[in-house]
């Protein structure tokens, strides 16, 4: 007989209690992992940002536009290697609930500055030759069942009217953090129409994305760009792509803090569930522990048995929780793909959930261990189960 056998049998001594405890742990571990994944998904944009890319937008707010004429002036700033721009289109596809991000961009430079958007060369060629052409992300294409050559109609909100597009290509991200739900088309298509229908809005773009030669000079280059447009009709604010992404996340700060607090509370709940089970086991085994010591077992033997039992239950709960997390997380990821394109449970979350379960296993065994070590053998033997 091995000690491990005794530990596992002790863990299964009250089967219903152990099963309920393991289920409680599993649900808590799953909830903890899901919340961490939601928070991770929120930061996916920031993670996907490149250190050598800056974003220049209107100094007041992203909703104000910048003149397209700034492009050449920005490109002249020393340290800027390349530049592209984009505008938020905000069209409706059939129904407002079918929301997805649509960007009017400068085709060639956009895919130069964003090499992580992988498009097959023949599709890229077709896109560049068609003013109404669109490159859509794989996730978006999958969501609506589109294919190359399909005609897509959008109803403009920021740019009023009916807009007809043709899917010319499908991009995939070079890594899992890349959003694959964007709809990217040629800025000239809307600019030409604006020139005819709303000339005051022609030649205006949403933001510039610049590639710089040295990421360590990002602050200096940003200052020089912004200084160039001081006291102009559209002053600029330039920041790294990561800061730009984080500024959006900052708008949801309260939600993220709330989620973090809930995740810590869940850890507390897991701890209480297991600590309660272990405390009950300790109470029931006072005379048994005293008897073991009568046989000659030492305090550290009891520590090993109690800690081992707590860890076995915690590990079972942790592993069951990780399986649940995988199943539920995959389903949630698919269901929320349009809101959280970066929703994917990463290995670090599984590891964190398991480590948390193990640490809780250790913490939950402290009270029963102290109790088992403190009790006098003679007093322990007097306790009748």
């Amino acid at each position, binding site marked *: *007989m091995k000690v491990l056998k005794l530990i596992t049998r002790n863990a299964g001594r009250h089967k219903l209690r152990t099963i309920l405890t393991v289920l409680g742990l599993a649900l808590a571990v799953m909830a903890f992992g899901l919340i961490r994944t939601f928070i991770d998904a929120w930061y996916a944009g920031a993670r996907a940002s490149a250190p050598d890319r800056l974003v220049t937008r209107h100094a007041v707010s992203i909703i104000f536009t910048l003149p397209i004429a700034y492009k050449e002036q920005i490109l002249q700033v020393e340290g800027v290697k390349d530049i592209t721009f984009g505008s938020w289109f905000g069209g409706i596809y059939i129904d407002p609930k079918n929301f997805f991000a649509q960007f009017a961009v400068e085709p060639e430079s956009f895919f130069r500055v964003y090499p992580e958007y992988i498009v097959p060369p023949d599709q890229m060629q077709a896109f560049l030759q068609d003013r109404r052409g669109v490159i859509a992300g794989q996730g978006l294409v999958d969501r609506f069942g589109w294919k190359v050559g399909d005609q897509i109609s959008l109803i403009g909100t920021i740019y009023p009217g009916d807009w007809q597009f043709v899917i010319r290509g499908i991009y995939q991200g070079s890594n899992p953090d890349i959003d694959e739900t964007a709809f990217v088309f040629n800025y000239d298509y809307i600019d030409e129409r604006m020139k005819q229908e709303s000339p005051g809005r022609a030649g205006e773009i949403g933001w510039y994305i610049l590639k710089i030669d040295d990421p360590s000079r990002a602050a200096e280059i940003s200052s020089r760009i912004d200084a160039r447009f001081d006291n102009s009709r559209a002053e600029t604010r330039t920041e790294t792509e990561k800061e730009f992404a984080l500024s959006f996340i900052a708008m949801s700060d309260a939600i993220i803090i709330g989620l973090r607090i809930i995740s810590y509370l869940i850890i507390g709940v897991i701890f209480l569930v297991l600590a309660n089970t272990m405390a009950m086991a300790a109470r029931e085994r006072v005379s048994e522990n005293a008897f073991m*010591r009568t*046989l*000659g077992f030492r305090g550290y033997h009891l520590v090993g048995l109690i800690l081992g039992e707590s860890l076995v239950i915690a590990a079972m709960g942790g592993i069951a929780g990780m399986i649940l997390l995988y199943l539920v997380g995959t389903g949630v990821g698919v269901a929320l793909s349009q809101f959280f394109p970066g929703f994917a449970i990463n290995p670090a979350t599984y590891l964190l959930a398991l480590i948390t379960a193990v640490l809780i296993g250790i913490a939950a065994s402290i009270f029963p261990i102290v109790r088992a070590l403190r009790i006098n053998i*003679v007093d322990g033997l007097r306790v009748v189960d």
Partner: protein
Amino acid sequence: MSEPIVKIQNLYKSYYRDSLEIPVLHNINLDIPQGQFTALMGPSGSGKTTLLNLIAGIDKPTSGTMAVTGEDISRLNEGEMAKWRAKHIGFIFQFYNLLPVLTAYENVELPLLLTNLSRKERKEHVETALSIVGLGERMKHYPRQLSGGQEQRVAIARAIVSDPTLLLADEPTGDLDKNSAEEIMTLLGRLNKEFNKTIIMVTHDPRAAEKASVIRNLDKGELQ
């Protein structure tokens, strides 16, 4: 004549309840030679179990000296005492104290986990102990699948499996019916006579005490 296996001189033991000292044993002087089967009798609260616990080294005297198996156990620290108990003492309890999650075989094997015996050697010891108590066919049974008498026999097998110097039994028949009690007492008698085991047994039961070669009475903490 050889040195007694238990030699107690001027033993005094008291407990404290809050600040009140409650004397339990006074001026105990007791010599038990190797191979003797001693019954300690007396009314409830007379201090029998306390004396047995002191001999087993799971309690310490307030004053006096006691040498068991030639060792002054009152001077041993907790670790030394645990090691000494594992080597020299086999304990039999009124309520058997078998671990319900272990089979008869595994319960008997428990004390051997503290030794350096190999798995094969442990198996030989356990099978021998179980066959001595007549439970060679019940090795794979769990305590819940055994009768009270059988459980106590498993507990006796566990007490003798490491071949201890001294067997201590605290009311070993106290939870058994008449027939089972008789079987247990016969078994203890055999262990004493055939295997020359020194046994000290606490009991209320005069019929059980008859099996012992010496009966000592305790009353109000004093040996009569």
